[in-house]
Every structure is written in structure tokens, then in C-alpha cells.
């Protein structure tokens, strides 16, 4: 050790080593992206499998069919007749149907206000008590009155009611079954699940008159079609990118495709030939959905409560009838009924690239971590650099004339002569950089507040204004700072170092919670590592402050990747209405507890702002 440490200590000052970090950062980003692209390959992804012994998917005969078809048709007719009627009429009809199946109906009113719009409605539900069970657990069958696209979920609701009547006749349930008809697909389920766990704001959301045990699983039926369907689209993304246990998804896939021969698709990939490209595309779509973290169906609201939920959506025009969908639900419920404890065996963190292929967190996490680490590496490099003393004033062309000041050091009875330069401790002026970074992160609350509380009509103009403001804000900020205190090279380095350190830390933590969001923000922020200062080990002003050419290029890149510009670009590419998107985000925050905007405005935007200040 005694022999090695001086060598290593000497290596610390090696100029070649000090030049390394930017390249190391670039390498990290490169490997991170390549890593992600490798995941769809057979060598890196895995075939899905059922982990929980108790599930036994597809091992039961399903009997939903025959005369149930007539019951279903009758219910569907009743529901179609309710179009345009008010809530009272709908409730009366639904409760009639529940009562005719010997189930006691209950209702819950809810009302939310977000982006100047009122979302109100009524949930109707009934509890089927397990004939021989102990009422400590329950599974939920949900059908929203209107689906995510706003269409009347006519077959879905009729199917849920027909299944309720059918389930009532079985004596083998070990858990209560709750049949829930929500008023809509976003607010209704949220209101119900909040109230079920007593987490609702009682002013807008009514408490539930009937309750059962702990929720063990949720299956949502979404079938707005008036004809036979081709395949089942399984939607599984929850709020904030949380996912249901993979076992639930696998059970549904195994039952639909294995037992009943219904095709299964995910992430709106209607055609999937299992090629590399399609796998990658499916995975990326899943990641986008996870990264945005919005509600993708009625099931999404359940997942933050650690209740595993999926939506089965009937899509396409084929030869599968509603009875087949009913049998699929019946079989899934028989599997859920077999559960002995909460879903826990399989993965909660995974990326799916095909109905039967996935990668788990251990395999994909390094990708986002490497991207996050690139900021940390640069931050540490800049920190070290900021602590180095400035180079001697005199040019070093005549080293023989230059007398290096030496000092005698005594330690442990040994004496050594070292250059004084190596021993001087340079004070880092931390106040200004730390204060700036912290205040900018807190300043992120302003756009967050504005975009959450503006009404639907003013949102687009607010955002436009903010985009223009954002364009000049870094310059304004940089000028006003310089007016008060001239930024020393050390300030400059420390500012970037601390900002990158905070960003790297945030993203690494976020990667374990919402991998996709962390990766996307990490990739969009990569320029921050390389703009700001030339790659050098020196702390001279000319080596620290970027040159003019560098300034212009950096400013251009940063402006192109600023948070508002990215939001505009994304809306443009997907053909989404900006106002709609922002209203959706505001609704997500107010109703679902969506955190994506907090990450954007309080992590990404401040980091970007400091990057902008540094190149001005």
C-alpha cells in the first residue's frame, strides 16, 4: 500500500487524467444508449413466465357462454337505451340490474376541478360476497361508462353486468368480487380507489357506502365496439410509470392466447412480427408511456395503491365475440381467486417488448444509470478542477530561471521537500454557486404553479409567453449576476459542478423509480455536460469561459433542447394539441398525483437554466 499510494496520488495531478472526464462522460452516454438498443435481442431479454405457483392460469374450463349470451344482449340493449339520459336514470337502471342478480348496489358521486374544467360523474358498484370466503380480500371487475377515447363502453359495461350475474352463481370464490361501473375512465376510478382507501378529499369525492377487504387485483373491461373484435389490447401502465406485477400481465396473456386463442397486443402495436425493430418500437412506446406517467386507462389509478391492475381492450374487426372476452375475464378471475397472498413473486420493474418477452430492472437499469452517471463524473471533474491553483503567471519557457518555492514537510518522522504550490489549500467560493443552484431549483415552482392552475383556455397563450421568456431568461440572469458580482473562473466551474451533481443525483434516484423518465431527461440534458467550458485542466479565465464560437453553438443547442421547446416539438410530432396536453398534465397533477411536471420544472428546467447562464 505504501508503495502504491504515492503513485496513485501523483496520478491525480496527471494532466492527461484530468482531461479524461468529458470523454468518459461521452462514453457513458454512448454505452447507455447502445445498451438500450441491445435489450430487444434474444440474448438480453427473457421469455415471460408465471412466477406465482398459485395462479395456475388457464387450468379451468370456462362456462361463460350459452344462455349468458342472451343476458348479455339484453343488458347491452338496456345500456344503449340509456345514451343521453342523466345520471339518475343510469343509476336506477344499473341498480335494477344489480338487484336482479341479488347484488346490493351502491353509488359514489365525485367532482374534480382541473384546468378550469369540471370533471364530475358517478360510480355505481356492487359487492359479491364470497360465499365461503372470509371477506378479507377482494378482486375488482371494472367497466368505465366511457372509455379513454370518450366512447360509450357499451359491450364492456354489459359484459361486466352479465359476468356479475354469472359469478354470483358460483360458490367457489375465496375473495369478494366488486363490480364497478365508473362514470368515466380517468376521474371515476381515481375517486373510487381514493375513497376505498379513505384517501379522498371529502369535499369533492363522496365516501363509499359499501366496502370489502384488501384489493388483490383489478381487471378492466374496455369494449366500445358494436361488432366482433380481433384481438385484446392489454394496457398496463400506471400513474407515474408504476407497473402492475408482471404475473398479472402474464396470466392475462397466457389465458387469452394460450387457453382461448385470442391474439394479444400491447402498446398499440397492432402488428408485431417479433422482429428486432418491432420489439424495439414496442419497448420505446412502453417507455414513453411510462416516462410521461399519465393515466392510460381506468386501471392506472389503482396501481399507486399497490393494487395490481390491467385493462383488457377489445380491438380490431375479427371473429372473437364478447363471450370470448367474458370467458377470458372468467378465467383470469379464477386465477386471481387462487391467489393466497398479494402479488409479489414476479417483477414490478420491467420493460415489455412483446407479449411474451421482457427485460427486468437488473438488465435495463444500467442504461439510465450510465446516462445519469455522466453528469456525476463531470461534476466531480469540475469540482477537482475548481480546487486547483491558477498556473504561474510567468511563461514556463525558462524553467531554469524559475525557482519553485519548496517547503519541508515532516510526517511520521520522515522529511520530504515538496513544491509549495502542492500544499497551498485553495478556498472554494461556494456561496454564490450554491445559492444560485438552490434558488433556481425552487424557482421551478413558478412555472409548475402557473401551468397547473391556469384554465384550459389560457394555457396555450401562457405557454407561448413562457417559451419566449425562457428564450431570453438565461441571458438576463447572466447579465444581472455579472452586474452584482463578477463571476470568477472558479465560480463558473463550481456553478456547473454543483448543478450537474444535483442533476446526476436526481436522475440516478429517479432511474430506480421511473426508469424511462430518468433516461429521457438524462438524454435531453446531455449537452449540459459539454457546454459551459472548454475541456481543459487549467483554471485560467481563457480556459474556463467558453470562446465566442463555442458560446454561439452551445446556446443554439441548449435553446433547441429547452424544456418548453421540447414540449412544443413533442406535441407537433404526435399531432397533439398543446392546450389539451397541458390540460391533461394539470388534470394528472390534481387528480392522479402525477409527478412528471415536478421533475420537468424543478429538476430539468433549473439545470437547463444554469447551462444557459454558463454559456452567456
Amino acid at each position, binding site marked *: 500500500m505504501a508503495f502504491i499510494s504515492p503513485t496513485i496520488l501523483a496520478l491525480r495531478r496527471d494532466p492527461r487524467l484530468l482531461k479524461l472526464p468529458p470523454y468518459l462522460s461521452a462514453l457513458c452516454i454512448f454505452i447507455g444508449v447502445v445498451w438500450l438498443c441491445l435489450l430487444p435481442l434474444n440474448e438480453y431479454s427473457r421469455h415471460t413466465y408465471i412466477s406465482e*405457483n*398459485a395462479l*395456475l392460469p388457464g*387450468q*379451468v*374450463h370456462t362456462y361463460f357462454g350459452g344462455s349468458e349470451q342472451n343476458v348479455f344482449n339484453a343488458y347491452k340493449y338496456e345500456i344503449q337505451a340509456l345514451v343521453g339520459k342523466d345520471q339518475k336514470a343510469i343509476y336506477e337502471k344499473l341498480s335494477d340490474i344489480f338487484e336482479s342478480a341479488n347484488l346490493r348496489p351502491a353509488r359514489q358521486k365525485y367532482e374534480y376541478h382541473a384546468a378550469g374544467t369540471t370533471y364530475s360523474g358517478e360510480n355505481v358498484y356492487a359487492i359479491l360476497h*364470497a*360465499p*365461503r*370466503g372470509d371477506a378479507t380480500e377482494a378482486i375488482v371487475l371494472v367497466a368505465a361508462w366511457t372509455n379513454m377515447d370518450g366512447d360509450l363502453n357499451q359491450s364492456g359495461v354489459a359484459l361486466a353486468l352479465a359476468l356479475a350475474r354469472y359469478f354470483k352463481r*358460483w*360458490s*367457489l*370464490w*375465496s375473495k369478494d368480487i366488486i363490480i364497478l361501473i365508473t362514470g368515466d375512465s380517468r376521474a371515476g376510478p381515481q375517486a373510487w380507489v381514493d375513497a376505498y382507501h379513505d384517501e379522498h378529499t371529502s369535499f369533492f369525492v363522496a365516501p363509499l357506502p359499501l366496502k370489502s377487504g384488501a384489493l388483490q387485483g383489478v381487471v378492466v373491461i374496455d369494449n366500445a365496439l358494436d361488432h366482433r373484435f380481433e384481438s385484446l389490447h392489454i394496457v398496463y401502465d400506471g400513474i407515474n410509470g408504476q407497473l402492475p406485477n408482471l404475473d398479472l400481465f402474464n396470466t392475462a396473456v397466457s389465458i387469452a392466447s394460450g387457453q382461448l386463442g385470442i391474439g394479444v397486443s400491447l402498446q398499440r402495436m397492432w402488428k408485431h412480427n417479433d422482429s428486432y425493430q418491432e420489439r424495439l418500437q414496442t419497448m420505446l412506446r412502453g417507455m414513453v408511456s411510462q416516462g410521461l406517467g399519465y393515466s392510460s386507462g381506468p386501471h392506472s389509478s389503482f396501481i399507486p395503491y399497490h393494487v395490481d391492475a390491467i385493462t383488457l381492450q377489445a380491438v380490431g374487426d375479427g371473429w372473437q365475440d364478447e363471450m370470448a372476452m367474458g370467458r377470458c375475464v372468467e378465467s383470469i378471475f*379464477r386465477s386471481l*381467486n*387462487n391467489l*393466497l397472498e398479494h402479488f409479489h413473486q414476479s417483477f414490478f420493474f420491467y420493460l415489455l417488448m412483446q407479449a411474451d418477452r421482457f427485460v427486468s430492472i437488473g438488465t435495463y437499469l444500467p442504461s439510465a444509470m450510465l446516462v445519469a452517471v455522466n453528469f456525476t463524473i463531470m461534476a466531480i471533474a469540475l469540482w477537482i478542477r475548481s480546487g486547483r491553483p491558477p498556473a504561474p503567471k510567468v511563461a514556463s519557457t525558462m524553467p531554469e530561471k524559475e525557482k519553485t518555492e519548496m517547503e519541508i514537510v515532516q510526517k511520521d518522522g520522515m522529511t520530504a521537500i515538496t513544491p509549495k504550490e502542492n500544499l497551498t489549500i485553495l478556498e472554494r467560493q461556494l456561496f454564490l454557486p450554491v445559492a444560485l443552484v438552490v434558488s433556481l431549483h425552487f424557482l421551478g415552482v413558478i412555472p409548475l404553479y402557473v401551468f397547473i392552475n391556469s384554465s384550459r383556455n389560457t394555457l396555450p397563450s401562457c405557454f407561448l409567453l413562457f417559451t419566449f421568456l425562457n428564450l431570453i431568461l438565461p441571458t438576463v440572469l447572466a447579465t444581472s449576476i455579472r452586474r452584482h458580482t463578477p463571476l470568477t473562473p472558479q465560480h463558473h466551474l463550481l456553478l456547473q459542478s454543483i448543478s450537474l451533481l444535483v442533476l446526476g443525483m436526481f436522475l440516478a434516484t429517479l432511474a430506480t423509480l421511473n426508469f424511462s423518465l430518468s433516461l429521457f431527461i438524462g438524454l435531453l440534458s446531455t449537452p449540459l455536460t459539454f457546454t459551459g467550458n472548454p475541456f481543459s485542466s487549467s483554471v485560467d479565465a481563457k480556459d474556463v469561459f467558453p470562446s465566442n464560437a463555442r458560446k454561439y453553438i452551445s446556446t443554439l443547442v441548449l435553446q433547441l433542447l429547452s424544456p418548453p421547446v421540447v414540449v412544443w416539438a413533442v406535441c407537433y410530432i404526435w399531432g397533439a394539441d398543446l392546450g389539451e396536453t397541458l390540460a391533461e398534465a394539470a388534470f394528472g397533477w390534481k387528480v392522479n398525483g402525477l409527478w412528471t411536471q415536478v421533475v420537468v420544472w424543478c429538476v430539468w428546467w433549473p439545470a437547463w437554466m444554469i447551462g444557459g447562464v454558463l454559456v452567456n
Partner: protein
Amino acid sequence: MKLPPLSLLPLTLLPLLLPPSLAAHTSNWAVLVSTSRFWFNYRHLANVLSLYRTVKRLGIPDSQILLMLPDDMACNPRNAFPGTVYNNADRALDLYGDNIEVDYRGYEVTVENFIRLLTDRLGEDVPRGKRLGSDGGSNVLVYMTGHGGNEFLKFQDSEEIGSWDLADAFEQMWEKKRYNEMLFMIDTCQANTLYKHFYSPNIIATGSSEIDQSSYSHHADNDVGVAVIDRWTYYNLDFLETQVTSPTSKLTLADLFGSYDESKIHSNPGYRWDLFPGGEEKGRERLVMDFFGNVQGVEVEGVGGNETEWREDMRRLEEIINRARARGKTTEAKKSEAPGEEVIAHGRDLGKGKVEGVAKIEGVEAWSQRILGAGALLGCALFWGGASWLESR
């Protein structure tokens, strides 16, 4: 009320005196154990109940069958046919029936209870129904099923029994003369590793699968929704149900083991003969009914060749008993002074008599030991005294 304690002694000791060459057994016992609970392990309970039904059919009475069931499938809310357990998708035969005696149920099925049961290390308050009352003349069938691995069998997700635990338990049984011959059967993954370490005589062991082999279920009932029986057990039962149709069956273990078809069982069953006197050759001649049925045979006097030796033994035994009886009278006289707690089972009393006899012999030994000890102490004291005297000089 006091039972005459020692008059029964000759009868009780009689089986112990029978020469071991007399292979015929005098009773049959069966210990049938399922070690897994939970609905999805339905088949393990069905396995055991099938065996239970078979041995009962072939004549072993409920009182001589120890049935351990860790879970109640018949009353599980998930059971589509409440109150029944089936081992076949045709559901022709309800194993639960209306006459089933479960001796150990639910969380009573533990490794400790199982070993205590085998070795009879049970408190006096444990009822007869929970005891294995076998003796040196009993043939014992031990059947186990559950989830196992290399040299272990899991009990209820919380503990496991190792192959050495089993081997030692059987050795204790042998030492305590708790069996004459034993057939050990086990249906679990890597089952053949479980009997690897047995070292007690007169055991024939068989298992469903080799090391690193899984033991598979035979088929599932799609209405019950679970697998209903394991393959190896299924084919054992198949043989027992179709071939061994009456208690007079003369089929041998060779026939039973010969019926195993590895292509059907999907694993390689194993056998262990080396502990059995005469090895495989003699073992294979054993009747299936020796283990699965119940003997109703009566010991006939004078069957054995060396009658004079036997009579001589009896004469000596009688002398011992007379002496003991004389001593018993004196203790009884003492006891009668305090007749408050006289309700003592005769077995226990018998033990007491034995202990007294032994204690007397030990008493003599103790006196010589005491003299020896005193002598040693005296020697030490002398040595110490002499040494200090030498030192002080």
C-alpha cells in the same frame, strides 16, 4: 381402582422373546403424510387420501392408520365441489367420503410431531389416535408426499425434514422395537435422495424420482382447476386398485415395482433393498399385503422348532416375575398408606417396577464407587500433606 400390574408382564414381553427369524408379523400400521398446504397443492393431499383409502380397503383399521393432512381441501372456499376431494378428473370416487379420520391436521403437521410420532416420544396426555402403537411385530408402511429437494422434504413452507433425520428416526424405531419390517414410499421431486442415509435393518424403500429429477403431476381436473394426483402415486394406485383386489392377494412387491413404467411416470423410481435381510431377492418376495393389508393371523403355539428353549425362557421369566411380585407387594403395602393418587396406567406401573430393579443394581455399584472416590480423596490429601511436609523441611 388398581390394575394388577405385573400379571400382564409375560404377555407384554412375549413378542420381545420371539426369535427374529420368525418373519411373520403380528400387526400392520400405516403412517401417511402430506407435507404441503395451499390450494394449488391439492394433489398432495389427494395422493395421501388415495393411499389412505387403499390401505383401509385392504384391511388396516383407522386406529392403525396415522393420517397427517396439513390442509383441508374439501372445505377450501375455492373448491368447486365442496366437501369432496378427488384424485381423478372423472370424479367417480370421493376420497373424502363420509368416514375419514385425520389424526394430525393443519399446523399440527410438523417435522417435530412427525418424528415424535415415529419414535413415540410423546407426552402421556397424547391420545391413542395420535400415537403409532406399533411394536416389534408390526409391519409399518410410511408414505410421504410433498415438495422436496436433494435430501430434504419441505413441511408446510416453514421447515423441512432431512434424510438423516428420517434415517435416525427409523433407527430409533428399530432400537425401540417399533417395527418388524418397514416399507418406505415417497413421492416428491428428487425423492430417492430421501432414503439414501437409512441404516436400520428390515427397511425396503422406494421413491418416485432420482436426484435432479422432478416428480410430475399426472393430470388436472379442469373444473376443480388444479392437478389432482401425482404420476408415481397414480400408477401405484392403479396397480393396487386393479391388481390387489382382495386381502387374500398373493402379489409381491416385485409385481408392484415391476408395474412401474418410466415412460408413464416421467421419472425414474428408485428402490433400496440392502437393509432387508436377504436383500433384493427376499425383499421382492414380500407380499404387497404384508404392508398394505392387515394380518388377522394368530400366533399358534408350537409352531417354532425350538420349543424347549422357549419353555426354558418362560420358566426363567416366571421366576423373575415372582421375585418382582414379592417386591411389588412390599411397595404396595407402603403405597396403600397414601392411596390418594392411585390411578396409574399399568404400562407406567410396569416401567416403575423395572426402574426399581435397575436402581438396586446401580445402588451396589454406587457404594463401590463411593469407596473408590473416598480412597482417591484420601490419597490426594496424603499426597498434599506429604508434599507440604517435605517443603516445610
